[in-house]
């Protein structure tokens, strides 16, 4: 994948397939300690115990339309080649949490990419699922919770084009504000 945000979209889609009603996406860019942590947590059906050991094997998948499953394998490989870690915590009651860390300035680390597009794509395509998105850069962070937005919007659906457009702009703006201010120049 060319962007970490595309991995996030992909892993979140797994949660949707697993019947989750709420998905948490967390991105923590700890640039001062040179790490970036990404976690996607859902409350879906979880991964069966016998599969959890082998789930990052590309030839293991639960789907029936094809015999390869690349989503988690690619994400794990991306973390590994950036001297990072990859972990899956899953159970039938708690759903699945996928966490990956990367070395921030590793030459092989893909850019975070367009998080706004990832989040709004998830929201627009799955209005019956709640999303919580937290993004942190060093000590600054912001959060977005679609449950709050839904409450605010009342009868207006979340996938209304005007709402999606607004959310995209809003996330871009907030992410811009998280960026550390460059005091040089």
């Amino acid at each position, binding site marked *: 994948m060319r962007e970490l945000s595309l991995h996030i979209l992909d892993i979140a889609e797994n949660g949707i397939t697993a019947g989750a009603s709420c998905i948490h996406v967390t991105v923590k860019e700890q640039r001062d300690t040179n790490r970036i942590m990404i976690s996607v947590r859902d409350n879906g059906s979880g991964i069966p115990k016998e599969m959890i050991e082998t789930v990052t094997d590309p030839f293991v998948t639960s*789907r029936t339309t094809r015999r390869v499953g690349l989503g988690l394998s690619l994400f794990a490989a991306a973390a590994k080649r950036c001297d990072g870690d990859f972990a899956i915590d899953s159970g039938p009651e708690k759903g699945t949490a996928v966490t990956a860390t990367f070395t921030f300035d590793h030459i092989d680390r893909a850019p975070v990419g367009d998080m706004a*597009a990832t989040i709004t*794509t*998830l929201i627009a*395509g799955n209005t019956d699922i709640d999303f919580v998105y937290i993004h942190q850069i060093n000590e600054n962070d*912001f959060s977005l919770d679609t449950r709050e937005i839904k409450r*605010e919007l009342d009868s207006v659906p979340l996938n209304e084009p005007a709402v999606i457009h*607004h959310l995209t702009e809003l*996330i871009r703006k*907030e992410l811009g504000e998280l960026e550390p201010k460059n005091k040089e120049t």
Partner: protein
Amino acid sequence: MAKISIDDLKKIKEKTSKNISLRSGDANVKVTVHMGTCGIAAGARDVMSSLMELVSESGRDDIRVVNSGCMGMCSSEPNVTVEIKDQEPIVYQLVDANKMRQIFKQHVLKGEVQTDFALGKI
């Protein structure tokens, strides 16, 4: 933690709730963007962004946009399925933002199937 500001949403709500009360509720067109790992790696997110813009531009309120998983034909991703009420669903292949625009203008809005981009009927 800093919460994203939702004040502007109120304005959007006021603006759109008037139109929404006029909606029949039933969707006449369903456009599915297939978002498996294969689709995402091939550019399905750009297709989705382009599609959401097109729906917004068209002003139509009977078009539903949904995500789904991979269909098993990964080499032809990104795939988009257009289902118009009482018509056979058409699957398009190797879609990008430009092709999406053409499919939307010609097929979704005018009902002309774009056979050049089509993978097949379901």
